[in-house]
C-alpha cells in the first residue's frame, strides 16, 4: 500500500523582535557606547550581570546600573571544533564564561586566543560600529 512517508513543514515566522526591559535596554545602550555595566541591587548590594529589573537573590526591584572595569577572568571555556551536526568548523572558536571582579554572573562570549586556560585575564574587543547588542563586543582577548 503506497504511502507518502514524510511531509516537510516549518514552524517559523519572519523574525522575533526581543526587547530587553527597562534595565536591560540601558545595559544595551551602555554596550553601544562601549561601556560594560552590571545591575546593582539596593537591598543586598550585589552587582550582577546580565542585568534584569529584579535581583535573582532577593526578588527586589533593581533600577540602577554601575560601570564595570572591562577586565574579566575566564572561569571555564571550551574550544568548539565541530558544529552540532558533526561538521568541522573552518577554524575552531573558543567560547568562555567570563567573570568580572566583584560581579555575580558574567558573560558567555567568544575569546580570541590559541592558549585558552582557566583563570586567564581577558578584555573586550569592541566593534567599530555598534548597535546595542552583546555582539558589540566582537570577542575577548588576553589582557
Amino acid at each position: 500500500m503506497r504511502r507518502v512517508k514524510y511531509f516537510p513543514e516549518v514552524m517559523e515566522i519572519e523574525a522575533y523582535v526581543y526587547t530587553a526591559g527597562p534595565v536591560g535596554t540601558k545595559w544595551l545602550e551602555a554596550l553601544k557606547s562601549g561601556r560594560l555595566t552590571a545591575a546593582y541591587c539596593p537591598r543586598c548590594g550585589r552587582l550582577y550581570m546580565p542585568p534584569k529589573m529584579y535581583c535573582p537573590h532577593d526578588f527586589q526591584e533593581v533600577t540602577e546600573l554601575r560601570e564595570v572595569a572591562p577586565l574579566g577572568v575566564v572561569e571555564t571555556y571550551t574550544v568548539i571544533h565541530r558544529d552540532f551536526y558533526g561538521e568541522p568548523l573552518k577554524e575552531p572558536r573558543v567560547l568562555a564564561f567570563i567573570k568580572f571582579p566583584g560581579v555575580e554572573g558574567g558573560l558567555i562570549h567568544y575569546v580570541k586566543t590559541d592558549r585558552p586556560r582557566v583563570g586567564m585575564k581577558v578584555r573586550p574587543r569592541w566593534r567599530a560600529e555598534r548597535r546595542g547588542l552583546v555582539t558589540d563586543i566582537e570577542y575577548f582577548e588576553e589582557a
Partner: protein
Amino acid sequence: MRVGIAGVGWFGFQPEVVDYSFREMMFKAAQRAYEDAGGLDPRRDVDAFISCQEDFWEGISIADEFAPDPVGGAMKAVYTVTGDGLQCVGQAYMMIKSGLFDVVVVESHGKPSDVVTLNEVMFTATDPVSLRPLGLENVHALAALEARAYMARYGVEEEHLEAVVEKAHKAGVKNPRAAYASPGRSRASTPTVVDPLKEADIAKFVDAAAVVVLASDRVVRDFTDAPVWVDGVWWSTEISTLEYHDWAFPHHAREAADGAYIQAKIADPAKEVGFAEVDNRYSFKELQHIEALRLAPRGQAKELLADGAFCPGGRLPVNLSGGALAEGVPFEVHGLARLSYAVAVMRGDFKAEVDRRDVAVVHSWRGVPTTTSVVAVLRL
C-alpha cells in the same frame, strides 16, 4: 496513602521510527502500558491523563491538542506539562495524594528524527538578550563549559570520562532498547567536538514514546499484583539565567534528590539505595549526578566508578541500561525511559546484575540550557 505504578509501556527507542507518526507511537506505547496494567480500559478506568512534550520539539504550536486521542483520553481530563516525563509522574503523584484521582496515566513522546534544524531549535531556548546574539554553531558547547568547570574543580581527567563511556556501552549491550550500545568503539578514537567533550561523550537522539499508569494503593491491585511504589518524587529548577548558575555542580539535582529522599524517608542514600538510573546525556554528567544524588561524596564518583562500585554487579549499579549514552536521548521521554528500565529491573523483567532490586532512585535532567532535574524513589 501510597502511589503505585500499575503498568509501563514503551515504543520505539530507534534512531528513526519511520513507519509510525508520533500519534501512532503514543498509541502503541499506551496499548502496551494498559496491557501491562492487567488490561486496563482507559475509557472506563482512568481519571486523568498527563502528556509531557514541548511545542518546538513537535513543530506544532499548542501541541497539547494532540494529547487526548492516542492514549484514550478524548473527552476526559487530559493536560500537558512542558517538562520531562518524570515531572509528569510528579504531577500524577500529587493528584493521587490529593484524593481527587485514583488512576492517572502519564505519557511522553519525542521524535527527534522529525526535527531538521535541531541545533537551531535547541538554541532558541537560550536567553534572547544575553546569549542568543552569539549564534552558537553547537549548543553542546554550553555543556562543555560545565564539563571543564567540573573537571577543573574536582580533578576529573579524560580517563574518567572514558570509564563512564565504556561502562555505558558495556551495560547497554544487555539492554534490548539500547540502539547505540557499541562497546567495541573506544572514546579516544572519536573526534573532539566541544573540548573537553569528544563525540563519544555526547549522547545521540532517539525516537520513543512511553506511558506509565499510576494508581493509589486503594485500587492499584485491580491492575497488578506486583506494583512498584513511588515513595518520593521531587524536582527543582536552580535558575533560568545560565550566567548565574554554578557551572561545576548541578545543585538542581541535589535539591530534587533531597526532596525525594525526605518523602521516601531515606536517610543515607548510599547505603539504602539498591541501584540508580541517572541522566548521562553527557558522560561527565553521570559522575556529577551520582554525587548530586548523594551516592558518592563530591568529587569522588570518579574513583568509586573506577573501582567498579557503580558497574553491573557492583555495590550500587548506576545506569544498568547504559543510560542515554547507550539508549539515546528521546527528548522529554528521558525521565520515563530511566523509570521504565528501573521498574523492569525491579520486577525482574530485565535480568540485571544487581544485588538489591527493592529500592531504586531515578533521575532526569532536561539538558542544555536548563538547570532543572527530577528525582523519583521507587520501592518494591
